[in-house]
């Protein structure tokens, strides 16, 4: 058997992933295409010794999105043996346009006509032989969901041959393409013709690359020639004739029953996107996800993992194993590693519940409807309705929320969502809120709603600020989206997607998060005590020394004690630590967050209510715990962007703190007017400036419709 590499390509909703899973099973590896945040999924067909590269789902090979560019470059480089093009048999026209583009590369190609079982159900008759004849490449009818036709597909791949060139365009257009192709260097005629076609369409990447004057002059001349003769510009001619060819294909090879009434998808959409019902239905869906992942099953499982699995079993097992070993070793293993990594891995059950539901919602087709229904509201913030779901889930835990943001297609929306999501107070931050509220505002009910309101304001203000920055204005496919038919997802696909997402997180927990946990544990347990350097209480540790050194930073926020600084730093491990650390450092030992003695001690720590609120705000809005940071780092897929996110969150938290303490305190009569007030006003002014700053128009994206 020969080794082969297969490139799998197709539309987003063609069942490409189902076929990929059917071919490769669990033998998949997810990586990254160099330089872009597009997943590179490679799998192997074990019984054939073939490897399959799953290229991103796309509709064409234009140069406007990272997915398209990645796929195009891969096809041109030619490091594969056969292209398998997955086409949805129930929506042939849409899929065949891409097929024609793929065939133009002149590489061995097999068309896998997928979802034949559904086509039969809908009484669509397809003459596979006729398609084969006209396309000039093998066409295999399959159903990836049932496994029908897979063996025939293998056979077709074995026997695939180079397709003959199709003449899709009028003579003047074909001549223009060959004229330009002849001026290019390279040895493969089909590739040269592909580049020539792209150049004639003013392809923004190739125009830069082939920037020589003679060629440009020839291009202008050829374009003018085509326009004069066909009374249409090159871009439109190429798309129009490609689709004309598709239309003739479909006319010859496909028999469709005449439309009888509404399809199931139409009937579901009548309800789900109904003027009055759409938003309530969406809210119910969000609530159910929240209820299952955050309020009930997910949290039960996570609590069980934290309290029983890591809290008792792992701790007890380690304690008995390490009996007699030095104190530092058992401290490292039990408090450091099991405590820290356990806190991170404890999120896994919650993530599984959440990802199962979201994979279902994504794969059944509902998520595109969410984008459709809420686009009008969210586009003002540079976000889409799709971004609301991670944010809601973040009120339980930021980690699964961040992991899920991956499936937001638009990279700008995805980045803004990743940076703002953890502003939502997660369940681990609530004890801090409860502690401050109980100690300083025992009678008041405004603190909790106020904090959530501030979180929402922070998200929208940040989104508004960031969407105007160049880094968040990358070219993306415009909002032109297919609304796929609803269908019941395959269980194996839902499981595969959940498995893949959780696995990444667990790997992260085992590496970066593990080492950070150990470092912070070391800093908080070691220091110079009475007997020289060794294990000490937190108050004598290196971390306390560090806290003392940096405490002055928080003076403008009203709390300059080293205890607060240390509590904030340990909050990085897990936000649950903040209350505990503060209690220990204030000499109280283990107490509940609303304990009276803790309240009294806090009154000694924070001179005013405003300072306490500033402390709360800083903890809520600064960088999240290490687990969430790990998830964020991976999803942003860029060290620079991640560093920016961390700095931004710290600055934002500091800004909120200073405004609350200085301005809030001033209004409440607790803080005197001073340089701090002026600083706070300046901070507020800068924020408002960035929010209301005019957006620089992106010139090449929108051109007013031509008026005649």
């Amino acid at each position, binding site marked *: 058997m020969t080794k082969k590499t297969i490139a799998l390509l197709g539309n987003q909703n063609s069942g490409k992933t189902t076929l990929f899973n059917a071919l490769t099973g669990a033998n998949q590896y997810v990586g990254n295409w160099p330089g872009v945040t597009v997943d590179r999924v490679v799998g192997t067909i074990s019984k054939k010794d073939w490897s399959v590269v799953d290229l991103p789902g796309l*509709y*064409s090979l*234009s140069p*406007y999105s990272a997915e398209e560019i990645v796929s195009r470059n891969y096809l041109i480089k030619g490091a594969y043996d056969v292209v398998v093009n997955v086409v949805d048999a129930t*929506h*042939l*026209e*849409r899929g065949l*346009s891409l097929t024609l583009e793929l065939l133009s590369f002149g590489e061995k190609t097999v068309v896998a006509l997928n979802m034949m079982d559904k086509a039969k159900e809908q009484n669509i008759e397809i003459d596979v032989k006729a398609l084969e004849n006209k396309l000039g490449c093998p066409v295999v009818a399959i159903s990836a969901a049932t496994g029908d036709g897979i063996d025939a597909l293998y056979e077709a791949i074995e026997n695939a041959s180079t397709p003959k060139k199709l003449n899709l365009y009028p003579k003047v257009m074909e001549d223009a393409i060959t004229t330009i192709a002849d001026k290019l260097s390279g040895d493969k005629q089909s590739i040269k013709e592909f580049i020539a076609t792209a150049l004639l*369409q*003013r392809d923004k990447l190739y125009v830069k690359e082939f920037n020589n004057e003679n060629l440009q002059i020839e291009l202008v001349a050829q374009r003018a020639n085509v326009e004069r003769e066909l009374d*249409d*510009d090159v*871009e*439109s001619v190429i*798309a*129009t004739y490609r*689709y*004309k060819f598709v239309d003739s294909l479909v006319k010859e090879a496909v028999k*469709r029953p005449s439309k009888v009434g509404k399809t199931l*998808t139409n009937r579901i*959409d009548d309800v789900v*996107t*109904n*003027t*009055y019902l*759409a*938003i309530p239905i969406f809210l119910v869906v969000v609530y159910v996800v929240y209820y299952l992942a955050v309020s009930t099953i997910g949290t039960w499982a996570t609590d069980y993992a934290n309290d029983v699995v890591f809290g008792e079993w792992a701790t007890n097992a380690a304690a008995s194993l390490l009996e007699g070993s030095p104190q530092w070793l058992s401290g490292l293993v039990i408090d450091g590693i099991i405590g820290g990594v356990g806190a991170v891995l404890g999120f896994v059950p919650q993530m599984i519940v959440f990802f199962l539901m979201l994979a279902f919602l994504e794969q059944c087709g509902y998520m*595109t409807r969410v984008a*459709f*229904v809420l*686009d*009008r*509201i969210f*586009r003002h913030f540079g976000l889409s309705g799709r971004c609301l779901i991670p944010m809601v889930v973040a009120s339980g835990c930021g980690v699964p929320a961040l992991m899920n943001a991956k499936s937001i297609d638009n990279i700008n929306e995805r980045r803004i969502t990743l940076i703002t999501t953890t502003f939502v107070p997660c369940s681990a931050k609530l004890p801090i809120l409860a502690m401050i509220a109980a100690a300083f505002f025992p009678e008041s009910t405004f603190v909790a709603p106020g904090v959530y309101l501030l979180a929402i304001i922070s998200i929208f203000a940040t989104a508004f600020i960031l969407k105007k920055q160049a880094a968040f204005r990358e*070219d993306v*496919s*415009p*909002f*032109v*989206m*297919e*609304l*796929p038919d609803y269908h019941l997802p395959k269980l194996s696909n839902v499981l595969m997607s959940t498995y893949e997402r959780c696995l990444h997180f667990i790997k992260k927990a085992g590496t970066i998060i593990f080492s950070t946990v150990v470092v912070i544990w070391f800093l908080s347990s070691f220091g110079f005590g009475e007997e020289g350097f060794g294990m000490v209480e937190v108050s004598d540790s290196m971390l306390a020394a560090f806290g003392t050194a940096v405490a002055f930073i928080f003076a403008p926020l009203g709390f300059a004690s080293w205890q607060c600084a240390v509590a904030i730093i340990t909050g990085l491990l897990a936000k649950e630590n903040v209350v505990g650390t503060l209690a220990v450092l204030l000499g109280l030992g283990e107490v509940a967050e609303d304990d009276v003695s803790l309240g009294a001690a806090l009154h000694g720590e924070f001179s005013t209510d405003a300072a306490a609120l500033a402390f709360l705000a800083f903890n809520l809005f600064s960088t999240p715990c290490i687990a969430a940071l790990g998830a964020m780092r991976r999803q942003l897929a860029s060290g620079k962007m991640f560093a920016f996110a961390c700095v931004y969150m710290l600055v934002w938290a500091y800004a909120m703190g200073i405004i609350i303490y200085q301005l809030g305190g001033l209004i409440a009569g607790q803080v005197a007017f001073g340089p701090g007030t002026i600083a706070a006003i300046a901070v507020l002014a800068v924020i408002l400036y960035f929010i209301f700053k005019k957006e620089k128009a992106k010139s*090449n*994206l*929108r*051109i007013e*419709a*031509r*008026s*005649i």
Partner: protein
Amino acid sequence: MWQIFMKTLDLLKLGETAKIKAVHGENTSLRRRLLDMGLTKDTMVTLTRKAPLGDPIELNLRDYSLTIRKDDAKLVEVV
């Protein structure tokens, strides 16, 4: 001076079908995307649905459903 009113895709009534005459906005990613998705000359398009807030809109063409924003639909001239 007289102007001929240009009918564009965003002006269709619910359920109305029209034939595409041209897609404007030369050399933009938006136009290319519209063409790639099959909104080419002489294609029949039906406006099948509007989002609850009136925008975006859902179109039916070439036997599949496509959603685009109203502003973007202004680039598509129909008869």
